[in-house]
């Protein structure tokens, strides 16, 4: 099976690269990153701020079913070139992953195919490795929460 999304994270390096090819035109792909309503839908988060310009700020927030904020991240946009690239910082609040520098490169493959290369540089190797393990940790938490729900329903 050919993987559509690839993650390249070399041992001992403080960076990672996510590559993905889309069955979308370059313009549509870029728009998915530029328009708050679209970002909200595919990222599954609320977009509080998305100032698409040099020096602009962005802020995302995700709440659980009870309205409790479980994820909040923010950063500054360093470069915003439509249909070409976005360079920004990324920092997750109340987490210990530090600040990352993200470079998103958008590339046209054909009229209806495009490629995204997302390069993240972390402050250290261990912070990068911790981030790589995050979805794994979330999986455990989610399983734990489900268990708790079941137990609560039994009472």
């Amino acid at each position, binding site marked *: 099976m050919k993987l559509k999304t690839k993650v390249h994270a070399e041992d001992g390096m403080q960076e990672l690269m996510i590559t993905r090819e889309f069955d979308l035109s370059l313009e549509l792909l870029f728009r998915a990153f530029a328009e708050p309503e679209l970002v909200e839908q595919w990222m599954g988060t609320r977009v509080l701020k998305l100032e698409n310009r040099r020096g602009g700020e962005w802020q995302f927030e995700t709440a659980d079913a009870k309205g409790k904020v479980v994820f909040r991240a923010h950063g500054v946009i360093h470069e915003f070139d439509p249909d070409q690239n976005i360079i920004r910082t990324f920092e997750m609040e109340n987490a210990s992953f530090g600040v990352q520098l993200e470079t998103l490169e958008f590339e046209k493959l054909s009229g209806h195919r495009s490629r995204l290369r997302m390069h993240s540089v972390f402050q250290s190797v261990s912070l990068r490795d911790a981030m790589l393990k995050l*979805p794994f940790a979330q*999986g455990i938490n989610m399983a734990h929460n489900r268990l708790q729900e079941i137990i609560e329903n039994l009472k």
Partner: protein
Amino acid sequence: MNLRRDVFQAIAEPTRRAILLLLASQSMTAGAIAANFETARPTVSKHLQILTECQLLKQEQVGREIYYHLNPDKLKGIAEFIEPFRRFWDDRFNRLESLMKEYDPDTNRNI
């Protein structure tokens, strides 16, 4: 869907991860493995069954005993835990792709 056969579901459980670590350097029988845990023996057996079903462990009959050992090929696939991270982004990008396929640029909204 049989979650039990999902590798990541299997390693999400602390005891099962402890079993994998225990078997990293040696093959062991179920009894010897269970001796390392305070968990009841049948519970450990259940964990071994799950790990075997998703092929993280292999069984080997030696005389009357069954020894468990790691299946390195399967483990390689989850080394460094990159796969859940990759899946996480793959899911997101799949959503992006289907969202934008339905998107009508002229009206600025989804059809």
